[in-house]
């Protein structure tokens, strides 16, 4: 037990180091980009109107001061960490003075909701079919289904999303093609709102599931195919154990360990957002927020989103690391 606790403590130290290095790297990368948030704001302000060059210079000085961009990068870096350690991500530069946290947490539930549902559904479908296809290797139906899902995998996601959009939004228009709910919806919680949200999430989720399930299926089928040739499976078959039990308790349970690691990584990465889903289906979320922030040179917002993603992935990996010895006795803490 002591060895396990030392292992956990060491892993936790690594977690903190990864988070620190990841966020620091993001800070310096964002500040090295040629995109200048002050110039971007001036561009937004003056793009279409009459602008006196003298006034633009004054604007540049004022905004640099207002955004806290005076001083060198190192001074800004220290100031950033002192704010972050107090839980303050600072104001967004492209939506000044609104706090970054307010902007992120408005969009985040949509990304998390869609991605967790889609990831779990594709995980369940892909692994179930993969296990069955690997175990019942002669089944024609499973071969056809596997072929179908694997066949969808190489199609670029953007194309697949548009095919679904055209099929179910235009050719056979049974599903909405934009938004998280209908325009002018009453957003107080009700059964009709929930139904509306489900209806709007079907197409984006379907696109994600179709792409994701194929990859889970491929992995699971390969793992299962290997495990079914193991001695203990053969021994169980010879011993008269039922095929359902062999599949469930002997094959799937063993094959699932690496898949669960993959699942944790996928769930950790959901904070990266689903940019294409959001753009194609007009679905709310943090993906487009990140793209906009990059284009606008909004360091604060990029750092806020990147920090969230770094922490998400690092925690997911940390949890898998510390849970693996408990889930699989073959993995030792040391």
């Amino acid at each position, binding site marked *: 037990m002591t060895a396990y606790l030392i292992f956990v403590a060491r892993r936790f130290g690594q977690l903190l180091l990864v988070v620190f290095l990841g966020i620091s790297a993001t800070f310096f990368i964002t500040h090295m980009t040629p995109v200048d948030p002050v110039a971007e704001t001036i561009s937004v302000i003056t793009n279409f109107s*009459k602008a006196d060059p003298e*006034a633009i210079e004054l604007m540049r000085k004022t905004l640099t001061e207002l955004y806290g961009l005076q001083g060198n990068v190192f001074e800004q870096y220290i100031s950033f960490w002192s704010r972050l350690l107090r839980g303050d991500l600072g104001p*967004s530069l492209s*939506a000044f003075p*609104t706090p970054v946290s307010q902007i992120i947490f408005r969009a985040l539930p949509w990304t998390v909701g869609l991605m967790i549902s889609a990831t779990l559904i594709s995980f369940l479908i892909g692994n179930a079919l993969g296990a069955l296809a690997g175990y019942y290797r002669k089944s024609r139906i499973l071969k056809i289904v596997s072929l179908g899902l694997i066949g969808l995998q190489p199609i670029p996601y953007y194309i697949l999303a*548009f095919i679904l959009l055209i099929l179910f939004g*235009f050719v056979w228009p049974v599903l909405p093609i934009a938004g998280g709910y209908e325009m002018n919806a009453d957003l107080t919680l009700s059964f009709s709102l929930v139904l509306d949200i489900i209806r709007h999430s079907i197409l984006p989720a379907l696109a994600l599931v179709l792409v994701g399930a194929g990859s889970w299926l491929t992995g699971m089928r390969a793992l299962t195919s290997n495990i079914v040739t193991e001695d203990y499976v053969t021994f169980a078959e010879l011993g008269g154990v039922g095929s359902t039990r062999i599949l469930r308790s002997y094959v799937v349970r063993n094959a699932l360990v690496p898949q669960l690691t993959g699942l944790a990584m996928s769930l950790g990465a959901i904070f990266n957002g689903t940019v294409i889903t959001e753009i*194609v289906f*007009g679905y709310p979320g943090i993906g487009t927020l990140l793209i906009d922030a990059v284009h606008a040179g909004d360091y604060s917002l990029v750092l806020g989103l990147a920090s969230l993603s770094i922490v998400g992935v690092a925690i997911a990996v940390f949890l898998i690391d510390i849970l693996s010895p408990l889930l699989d006795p073959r993995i030792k803490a040391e």
Partner: protein
Amino acid sequence: MRLWRQLLAGAALAVLAATAQAQDISNLPRKETVIIENPEGTIKNPGWFNIWVNGGGGLSTGLQQLTMDTLWYIDPDQGINGTWYNSLAADKPIYNADFTEMTVKLRKGMYWSDGVEFTADDLVYTVKTQIDHPGMVWSSLLAVSVDSVEATDPYTVVFKLKKPNSRFHALFTVRWNAIWVMPKHVFEKVGDPVKFDFANPISISAYKLKNYDPQGKWYIWEKRDDWQRTPLGLIGEPGPKYAAYVDGGPPDKKTIAQLKHELDIIHDNTPEGMFTLVDQSKSLATWFKGFPYAHPDPTLPAVIFNTQKAPFDKADVRWALALLIDMKAVDLASYRGAATLSAIGVPPTGIAMTTYQAPMHEWLKSFELDTGKEKIKPYDPTIPTQIADMLRKQPKFKDQIPTDATAIANQFGYGWWKPNPKAAGELLERAGFKKVGSQWTQPDGQPFRVRLTVEGDTRSVFTRAGTLIAQQWKQFGIDAKAQPTTNPWQPMQAGDFDTAIGWSVETWGGDADMSFFLDSWHSSFVAKPGEVQPARNWQRWSSPELDKIIEGIRGISFDDPKGVDYGMDYLKLVVKEMPTIPMMSYNVFSSMDTTYWTGYPTFPDDPYTDPVPNWGNSRLMMIKLKPAQP
């Protein structure tokens, strides 16, 4: 297994129930709602309506078009009652003799949507508050101009200016936007106007906020019951009861949405998207009824030279590069032939067509360029006709291409430079260049290297144009390459570029006064190499002759007919000096669906405003739109 079956059946029922709902995109009465694309897409800070602070709340969500107002508007096209509108002002600006004072007479009987009357106090407050708060959008512009502002009575405001400025009123004159007036009675109650979100915005125009998406996808505005008590209401009664501004998504998606009649006005599309709509929609309206369909905005995309960087500081080199461009090919590659060309430094649209383009067309026909070895006439007035002839050969366009010379000029432009590699070579040789083998070298023996900065995927039309131009230069023996970037304005501001596709000319469209952009081209505003260049003289070009023209414009009133003479002088000067290579107007592929609404602006039948719906002036569409269905 039974549990699984029940769960599956339940899930299937839920999906069926969800899909079985009617496919309306909103619960608003569709026949009373006009749905318009907002090109800003998803708004990142949707609850921010304080347009006087750049708070990420979106501008063209309908906020500036339907709820804001200011003193004057100039329509980029013909307008409903002429191009000039006295909006909250009762009359045109009144200047003193030396342009150091401007008096504004305001309209009486204009009301905010909460029932408070608009008065001079609102205008004075707008100016003073912005000057006092440097974080506000128009703070700097006002701070450098205004010495004092006061209301001499409830409907008269007098501005005293820090220096003579005959165009000060332009700050309060809408082209795309302008300084909008603030409701004093709301803002004076908040502590810091820079931090105030104006979450329940009141309106001084004919619409007010009904609802908005907290995720920033849509905004809905409702016609005010007292719309008559607004400047827009004085022009006429708005047709739509509701106006919804939505995130249209990528071109394919908004094309689908308009084919399904779920999007009445597309802001801009790809040429391919527009051609699909023309092909498949039975209810489409476009600015030009036939090819090229698009609205030419008063913006002039051009090849911009960094004239502070050798060898682009030499007019001969700039002219040589212009003479190597085959604009017919560029037009077909970029706009698929749907461009309105301009060889001169003013966009081929609005009033400029008759005021500048037509007279300059005659001048250009006889314009001669001395290459050092010969005198050539570089202008080719037949290029638009050649493009029209080429397009007419395509079966799907053949009936839509005009044959009338005036119509061709309006739709395809008056002419452009004829490719002339021989003359280009002569100009380069006069500038000290040599051709070694198949490659041109500079006077110092270094290869002639040109990088053409283009905006990456966000403006694909100009990326295509830039890529082809670089190829054409390369074919001539120049080490030329297109260099895509997400934001070409950044290197242009920093002066860190050779050449770029962009624009440094934007005009009023509906007014011949060039000062809107030209004033910022004065040599006193040109940054030193290595320093940031303020908008808009990205080419960093200066000339004593140009300064004289600009100072001449500054010394006359904005409606003085001499302004056109100065404009012509500027156009002739930039033809000779070629600080940028003007290409074409910024054609915007706005498309309108007539299933629910009619009365959209079209040329030549009723070109009353720019159909591009993010412009402040597009509010005029609300007046002219009429329901298409009972």
